[in-house]
């Protein structure tokens, strides 16, 4: 069973295609009692910055139809605490750890990459160029091809680790950003980060979130995410990690069929701390039921018109 689900992304060998989405399981440990971390394809931990960040004022989360708005504001203890305290503790789990990084300048990304280079226990870096809550000069890196390319290139220059660029859906043409990141040397692409959204508290007549706007995630955005994977799969020749509203194995299959080699479970963890484990089990069961020897056969299959017939 496990052989059938094994995939490789940017040189990371994973038992199965199921990762956690950055920011939704913290540094993993809170989830260890609900989820066998070692059973994951990879553990992507919450985005880290050079200096500790206090994050945004509450409320930081609002519920929307089939979705969640969050404005955590990248609260994190900073890269030194990560290296000193978090990574050593994660070493006891048999799972590739992907460290997500973000900065307010290109230089900060580069310095983070350099700082983490050679640190044991890191399988890859995920470059979060898309977080809508970080106002780096007003617009996010991930919305401009040239800025996205610059960040990825400088990160690549400063690390020997595989680099996954995480794209934002808040753009006119996500393919252009994907091509830029690919051209700059990204080894894989994660898509998508959250959509920018907001909610108004009608009683208070004020924005609900302390930060006014936030990032929309959860099942509500799945159609946007599947479309992004579909488009980028046709535009670049890199392995893709698909995410956005995956709650079940069937949701994960939508992404895989659209072209994702791996998937990440995000908001679902907030609802059901065992969600990722259920997706892993469900994928294995699907392969068995359908008699598929290798999950890689399904990657992008919906483009080929393969399998099943229209009836």
């Amino acid at each position, binding site marked *: 069973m496990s052989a059938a689900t094994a995939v490789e992304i940017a040189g990371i060998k994973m038992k199965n295609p199921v990762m956690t989405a950055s920011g939704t399981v913290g540094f993993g440990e809170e989830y260890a009692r609900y989820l066998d971390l070692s059973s994951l394809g990879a553990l992507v931990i919450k985005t880290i910055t050079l200096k500790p960040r206090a994050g945004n004022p509450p409320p930081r989360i609002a519920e929307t139809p089939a979705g969640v708005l969050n404005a955590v504001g990248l609260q994190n203890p900073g890269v030194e605490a990560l290296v000193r305290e978090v990574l050593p503790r994660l070493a006891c789990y048999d799972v590739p750890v992907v460290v997500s990084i973000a900065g307010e300048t290109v230089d900060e990304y580069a310095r983070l990459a350099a700082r983490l280079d050679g640190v044991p226990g890191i399988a890859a870096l995920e470059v979060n160029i898309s977080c809508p809550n970080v106002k780096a000069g007003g617009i996010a890196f991930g919305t401009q091809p040239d800025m996205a390319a610059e960040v990825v290139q400088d990160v690549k220059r400063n690390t020997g680790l595989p680099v996954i660029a995480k794209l934002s859906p808040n753009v006119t043409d996500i393919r252009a950003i994907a091509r830029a990141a690919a051209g700059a040397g990204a080894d894989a692409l994660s898509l998508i980060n959250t959509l920018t959204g907001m909610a108004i508290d009608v009683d208070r007549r004020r924005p609900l979130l302390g930060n006014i706007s936030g990032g929309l995630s*959860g099942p509500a955005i799945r159609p946007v995410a599947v479309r992004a994977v579909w488009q980028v799969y046709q535009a670049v020749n890199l392995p893709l990690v698909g995410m956005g509203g995956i709650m079940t194995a069937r949701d994960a299959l939508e992404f895989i069929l659209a072209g994702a080699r791996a998937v990440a479970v995000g908001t679902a963890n907030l609802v059901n701390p065992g969600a990722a484990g259920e997706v892993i089990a469900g994928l294995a069961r699907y392969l068995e039921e359908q008699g598929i020897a290798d999950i890689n056969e399904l990657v992008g299959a919906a483009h080929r018109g393969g399998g099943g017939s229209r009836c």
Partner: protein
Amino acid sequence: MSLVLDCRIVSHHKVALDCRRLVLATPEVAAVARPGQFLHVRCNGTADPLLRRPFSIHDVDRERGLVTLLYRVVGRGTALLATRRKRQKVNVLGPLGRGFQVPLECRRVVLVGGGMGIAPLFFLVRELAVDLTRAIWVLHGARTAGELNFVNFGALPVHLRVATDDGSLGFRGSVVGLFKELAPEVQPDWVSAAGPTGMLRALGQEMRRLGLPGEFSLEERMGCGIGACVCCSCRIGSPENWNYQRVCADGPVFPAGEVVWE
């Protein structure tokens, strides 16, 4: 240790306008729950509403393995929860959070509950009352008399005082007003409180004035409930030097003197 469990509904009753008492069969939770902890509840199984809802543990019957919640129907989640019937299952995650911690040396304890804030205090009274040498006052505030009568402290060795905004029962005014009136006479050495932000803030001021220690149970919108998503932040420390802590994991109960109101 906390768990994700499908719990059978043992009973589910309307106890006042908009208020429900929900009894769940869950020996696992009953065995380990502490007063002030909460359960994170899925109100239905679909993606709308998506998130769980936190409810304080109102009562526990360890022998029969039962856990009781007391909740008010305020929005969609609680409205859906209210449609669940006896013998159906409800998915819960818990017990979660750090509960009340009344110091052993405190002998004159006042518990202040505003509105549904009374829910966790009942469980706390049960625990405190085991030590019969301790004097316990419960001050319960509500808008009107009809919102008070559903928590029955009758069998417990406590001094119950009530306040209603409309004066329909007990003290006329806020529960903090009642506290102010009683404090000189009661001379408490500890206050545990739960209720709306406005009430806790006012109570905190009064406690500071009187130099009284105590603890507050806070509420904030939650994601995971288990300390990972850092969505449920509150400010803890002093007005000059605070940091964000997580209501779900570092709280929901915090030292009264360390809560920094926004």
